[in-house]
Structure formats: C-alpha cells, structure tokens
C-alpha cells in the first residue's frame, strides 16, 4: 500500500516535470513561428493602403506593443492607463510599452530584432542603432502614401528636410522628431569653487585647465573632472569639445571609427584623427591634467554615474549636451540650492552642428501587423496636444504643473515620470521647464547664428564591406587610445606611434579607402 503510493507520487512528479519542459519549449517555438508568419504581414498592409486611400478603418480594436529605451517610470501605470483610455476613444487601440533599461539596452535592442519579437513601434535614433538596424532590415519602409494617409498632422507639421535627413540609402524608416537641437558639448562646473579661488571665466581650454587643476590641488575629497570610460564608448564628450569642435572637425561615426573630415571641406577628405598634430597637442593637454590629479588614476575602471557624483559633491565637472547639463543645473537648484553650478562653452565662436532630425524618432518594426494603427499612434504622440502633454510630462497637477501652453514646472511627483526616451516624439508642442536655466537658453540662442550646415550632414556609412576591420579598430581604440588619452601612458610619442601602428594592422587604411569612396559617391550624387 505504502509502496504503491510512493510509486504513484514518483510517476506524477516525473510527468509534471516532463510537461513543464514541453510547455516551456512550446513557448519558445511559438515565438519563432509568429515571427515567420509575421514577415508576410507588412506586405499585405501596404497593399491594403494603396487599394484604399480613404479614411482608415478602425472598427477592429488592436493592441499595440511599443519598445522604448530607459527605465520604466514609477507612474507608468497611471499615465499609460490614461493614455489608453484616450487612445481607445481616438483610434480604437491600446498600447503596451516595454522598457529597455539604460544599463543594457545596447545589447537587448538588437536582440529584439534578431529574435523577431512581436512588437509594433520602437524608439530609434542615429545614436541608437538606427542606420544599423535599417540596413539590416529591422524597420518597415515608410512611403509618402503611408505617411500622408495615416499621419496627416505630422505630414503637415514636419519640415520636408527632416524626412530627407532620416533616409538611409534613399529609403525612409523613421518618423523623426520635430525639434531643433545642437549636438555640441559643453562643460558643467562648480561656479562656487571658481569664485572661491578667484579664477578667470571659463571660455577656453586653458581657462578650463586652470579651473580643473586648482580644484584638484585645493579641494580634498573632490575629483576635479568626472568621466566614465569604463562604459566602453570609444569617443568621449570632452574629446568632442577639445578636438572636434575646437578644430571644426566632424567624426563620421564616432563610436566606431577615428575618421573625420573638416566641416568646411567641400571635398569631404577623410583623415585619421589620431595621426594629426592637433591630437598630439591634445595628448599633452590631457597628460598635464592627469599628472595634476584632475581625474582619478583609475578612471578607466570607474563605473559610477558621473552626474550623481557631481550632485553628491564628489566630482566638480563633466562634459555633456547643453540640454542635459541645463537639466542638471535646474535639478541642483531645486535639490541643493547652496551648490552653485554653471555651464561653459569651451569653444565659443566655432561652428556649431545642429542635430539632424534622426537625433530622436520612432520607427515601425518590419514585421508589425498593425502598421496603420501604429502610424496613427505616432501621429497623436507627436502632434495631438492632449496626448503629447500626457506622454511627455505625465499627469497634470501630479507629475507636472502646466504653465500656459508653452511652459511647465515640475509637479510633486515629477520624479515618477521621467528618464526614458519619450523624446522620440519631440515636437513644437514641447513645453519648456520654467526652471530651465536662463543662461542655457541664452547660450542656445547665441549659437543659432553659428549653426553650420554642410553637405555630409546626413551621410551614413555602410560598414558591411569592411566589417572585420571595423570590429578590430574598435578594439584597438579601447585598448590603446583610451589609456593614452587619460594620461595613463607616460611616453606620449611612443603611445601615439603604437596606437597608429595597431590601427594600421587592424586595417584602418582599407576602411578609410572604403569610406572615402562612399563619401565621394554621396557628394557626387548631391550635385
């Protein structure tokens, strides 16, 4: 009797385990199948559009799935719950969002496409793998027909040049944001410390070095300059100011290759930035800073969030976009009013580069089954005042307090709705933070006249023919360039020579030839 029971139990247990395995495996298989089926879907969708250009049919309710970058905000359920009620009314659809956290989105993002997961809309940007995924076929091509039919408001409001800038190989894969931004980097620093030591105004590399060295020498417990090279980026914000902006250069693909052209060079001649006297000069500048203890000796292993360290008064300065440091300034004024921060442009008077429209945007997944409704959703996000306000700033009175039509101030729960890529639908409807520092605004306005447009602005490098070389060059930059820049190698000449030699053996010449021929073809086509 007893024995029988045990036996039965064993059999049941074993069966359950077996079933569990089978079930979980089925889940995996299913995904693959839907992926394969879904491949055919967009084709039908596009045909449907061509045949029926009239009012879109929204009689059937659909559920959309959206991918955004960033952490899920605390008030997601409230805000998106409200959004869904409104969407149900307007386009008979609801949307569910998945957030790819800042810490590992670069790995997860391409996987979502490679695994062909089921989603409809996705945030994308020139810095967030737009070209790469577009060339690999991850996004649905957007035709003028599709856009004018399903996004009438956006079609109306968006300047035509924005669409042009978002094209890859002559095809459009993104609904870009509608917003002017400048990509030039500025530095954020402690104005109270500058005053304390009676230092000159910071407006050049020299005055900045003076500030950094004084802080490093006089202030114990504060690191003068904060950087985070441990994150694997190969080209840093400060380099952008000190080398690119300072010399009016532009790197073609900053995180892949050390190749640049001069902004005003109409022939678009490419050169290796590491093999220039300007870079050698910069190395001396950096080495001097490093030797004076401006940054930690272990800077390449530091993984701390630099802004959090500044806020905790452990770091005195860093370089970033104007918009980001402006937000930092207002955050500090709100949370720690006794600490005085300021913003400085190290390269005033140089040419400024406007962000092209692909700085932020939304795309449709190539295998989405709800193309029409997805486009309609982007239309509303970008150009419907009510929905734009809700998705950009959260719930009025809680997350933000509206101030007229153009401005807002942080609400009591502002922190619960922020920190993710809702910039994808930036538009002229954006409100400005009333606490936005005036000086940042002034700086931005003073730049407007220096914004420089150049023929290669929208050039995109297709690295497929030289992918082996590109992979190895990235590795060389990390291994030889980063320690050299941060002054960790004592013999600068030898370090630079080593770096150039390694780049040569990694195949930089081949990449340069390929890039030059693509640029030549691009420029020839523009004439």
């Amino acid at each position: 009797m007893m024995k029988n029971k045990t036996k039965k139990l064993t059999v049941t247990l074993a069966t359950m385990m077996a079933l569990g395995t089978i079930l979980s495996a089925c889940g995996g298989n299913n995904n693959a199948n839907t992926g394969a089926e879904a491949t055919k879907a967009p084709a039908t969708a596009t045909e449907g559009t061509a045949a029926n250009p009239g009012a879109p049919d929204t009689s059937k309710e659909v559920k959309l799935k959206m991918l955004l970058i960033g952490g899920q905000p605390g008030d997601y359920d409230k805000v998106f719950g409200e959004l869904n009620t409104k969407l149900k009314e307007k386009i008979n659809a609801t949307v569910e969002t998945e957030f790819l956290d800042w810490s590992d989105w670069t790995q997860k993002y391409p996987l979502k496409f490679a695994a062909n997961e089921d989603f409809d809309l996705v945030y994308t940007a020139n810095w967030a793998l737009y070209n790469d995924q577009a060339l690999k076929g991850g996004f649905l091509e957007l035709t003028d027909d599709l856009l004018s039919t399903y996004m009438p408001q956006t079609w109306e409001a968006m300047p035509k040049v924005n669409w042009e800038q978002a094209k890859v190989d002559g095809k459009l894969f993104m609904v870009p944001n509608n917003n002017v931004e400048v990509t030039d980097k500025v530095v954020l620093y402690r104005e109270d410390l500058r005053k304390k030591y009676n230092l000159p105004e910071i407006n050049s590399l020299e005055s900045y070095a003076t500030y950094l060295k004084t802080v490093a020498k006089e202030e114990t417990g504060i690191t003068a300059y904060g950087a985070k090279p441990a994150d694997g980026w190969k080209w840093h914000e400060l380099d952008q100011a000190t080398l690119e902006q300072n010399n009016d250069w532009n790197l073609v693909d900053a995180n892949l290759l050390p190749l640049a052209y001069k902004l005003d060079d109409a022939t678009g001649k490419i050169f290796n930035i590491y093999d220039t006297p300007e870079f050698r000069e910069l190395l001396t500048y950096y080495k001097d800073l490093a030797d004076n203890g401006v940054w930690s000796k272990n800077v390449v292993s530091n993984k701390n969030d630099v802004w959090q360290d500044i806020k905790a008064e452990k770091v005195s300065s860093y370089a970033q976009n104007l918009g980001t440091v402006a937000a930092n300034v207002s955050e500090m004024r709100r949370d720690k009013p006794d600490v005085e921060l300021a913003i400085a442009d190290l390269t005033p008077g140089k040419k400024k580069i406007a962000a092209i429209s692909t700085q932020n945007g939304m795309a449709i997944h190539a295998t989405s089954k709800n193309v029409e409704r997805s486009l309609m959703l982007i239309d509303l996000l970008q150009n419907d005042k009510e929905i734009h306000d809700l998705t950009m700033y959260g719930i009025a009175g809680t997350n933000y307090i509206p101030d007229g039509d153009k401005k807002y101030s942080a609400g009591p729960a502002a922190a619960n709705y922020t920190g993710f890529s809702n910039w994808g639908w930036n538009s002229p409807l954006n409100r400005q933070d009333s606490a936005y520092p005036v000086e940042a605004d002034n700086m931005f306005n003073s730049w407007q006249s220096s914004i420089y447009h150049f023929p290669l602005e929208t050039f995109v490098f297709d690295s497929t023919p030289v992918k082996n070389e590109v992979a190895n060059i990235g590795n060389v930059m990390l291994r030889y360039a980063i320690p050299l820049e941060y002054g960790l190698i004592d013999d600068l000449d030898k370090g630079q020579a080593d770096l150039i030699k390694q780049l040569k053996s990694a195949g930089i010449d081949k990449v340069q030839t390929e890039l030059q021929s693509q640029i030549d073809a691009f420029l020839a086509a523009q004439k």
Partner: protein
Amino acid sequence: MERGFKMKQKQHGFWDDVKKYRSLLLMLVPAVLFFLLFAYIPMSGIILAFKQYDYTGGVFGSPWNGWDNFKFFFNSGDAWRVTRNTALYNIAFIVVNNVVQIFAAILLFEVAGKWFRKITQTVLFLPYFISWVVVGAIAYNLFNFDVGTINVLLKGLGMQPVDIYNTASYWPVILVVVSAWKTLGYGTIMYLAAITSIDTEMYEAAEIDGANIFQRIMKITVPNLMPTVIILVLLAIGNVFRGDFGMFYNMVGNNGLLFSSTDVIDTFVFRSLTTSNEIGMSAAAGFYQSLLGFVTIMLANYAVRKYDKDRALF
C-alpha cells in the same frame, strides 16, 4: 513451440524493461528534452557562422559568405594571445580550485563538531551566490588607487600605494584568487559528499593498524576521491576555451591597460562586436571555441581511457 515462446519473451523483454523502469525513464525525459531543445536543435544555428545575417532572410534565408566571419578574429593579430590566455586561465582555475576545494573538504571532514562544520560550510558557500557585478564593485573598492581599502591601509602604514588597476601583471594572481574564493564552497560540498560516502570501515581498520591522520588522508581519502576528481576535471576541460565572461568582464571591464594579461576570447569578441552587432561574426567565434573544446575533451578522454578505462567519461 519452445522457440516461438522464446522469441515472444525476447520481444516482450524491451517493453517489459520500459514498463519496469517507467518512472525512472519518465524522470529522464526532461533532461533528454532539455538537451534536444536547447543543445541539439539550436546547433543548426552554427550555419550562421558562414552567413551574412539579415532580418528578412533570418537564420536559413540569409546569404552565405564562406569564411568571411572568421576573418576579423584571425586578422586581428590577437587570436593567439586571447586563445592562450583563455586556456591558461582555465587550466589555472581547474588546478587551483580543485586543490583548494579538496583541501577544504578534507579539513572539514576531519574537524569534529557538527555545528562548526555546518557554519563553516555555509560561510564558504556564500560567495558562490554573489553576482560577478557585485564582486567587480567590491574589487574596485578594494583595489582602486585613490580611496581603495588596500591603498588606504598601505598609506596608513607609511608605504607607497600600489596602482593595481594600471598594472597588468597583478591580474592573473587576482583573478585566480577570486575564482578560488568564489567557487570554494560549491566544490567543497561536492567533495565532502564524496568523502562521506567512503566506507568508514576502511578508516576503522586503518586506525587499528596504527595509521596516523596524515596516512589515513593520503592512503584512503585521496585515492577514493580520485574518480570524482577525474570526472569533474574532464567535464571542466571541455570548457577550457570558454572564458567566464561574467568574471572577466566585471573584474576588468574596458580597462585597456590590463588587456594584455586578462583578455579572453569571450571578452575580446564582446568588445569587437558590441557596437556592430554582427551576429554571424559572434557565431563564428562561438563555433571556433566549440571546435577547440570538442577536440580537447576527446583528447583528454582518450588519455584517461588509456590510463584507466573505467574512469573515462565514455
């Protein structure tokens, strides 16, 4: 008649066995399914190593490109260095970790006191559950130049601080020690279980014959542990060309100054491909590692077979 009966019995034999061991077989099913689904079926993905992957074509429809995906690895000039590093680190881990674990297991076994043993076991086991990310952060707080615990101590004692994060030669030692620390508890428990299953009569007999504690350990415990050691080492050897990515990446990160002595195949491939997302090229690197691993384990197994047939894996 008799012959027919025999045949019938034979035919029944297999199904009788199936019926007799049905619960055991049923318990085997999950493992078989697991390997079928997660090891054998995905193996067809190896073809990606020879393809230029694009989303529209998928795994099977993408165009072939021959050996192109392997080029980046062998053209880099680093292939030999990272392969050598991977193998040497893993061999060091296998040797050091096993010796330390066996030592700890014997110590724990010989030391009397149930409570002491249990508590020690738990404490030793703890590091196993700490994720590499956290270990990396702990290491940074210990080793960094400006405010690291070690350097603060050194400075307090009036000595020169050591710049650990900028000196490649310290790292092989650090990594081996950290790996031993982290796996100690897990291995100790395995070996302790093996020791406990050794027939106690042998110890009693040895004690009567006047063997001292060292003789008992060297002549009874260690020889009886050998089969377990061989199996575990054989299993580990199959992975000698796979670097523990979590460990190397979190301990060393993107610190280029340390790559000469800490770069393993996995971190090298990760760094090369993390911005370009070439799935075919990652598949090629994985294929290279699997091939090396396969060859090594066949050779190791062959060697063990020659030495003692019963102790080989297959």
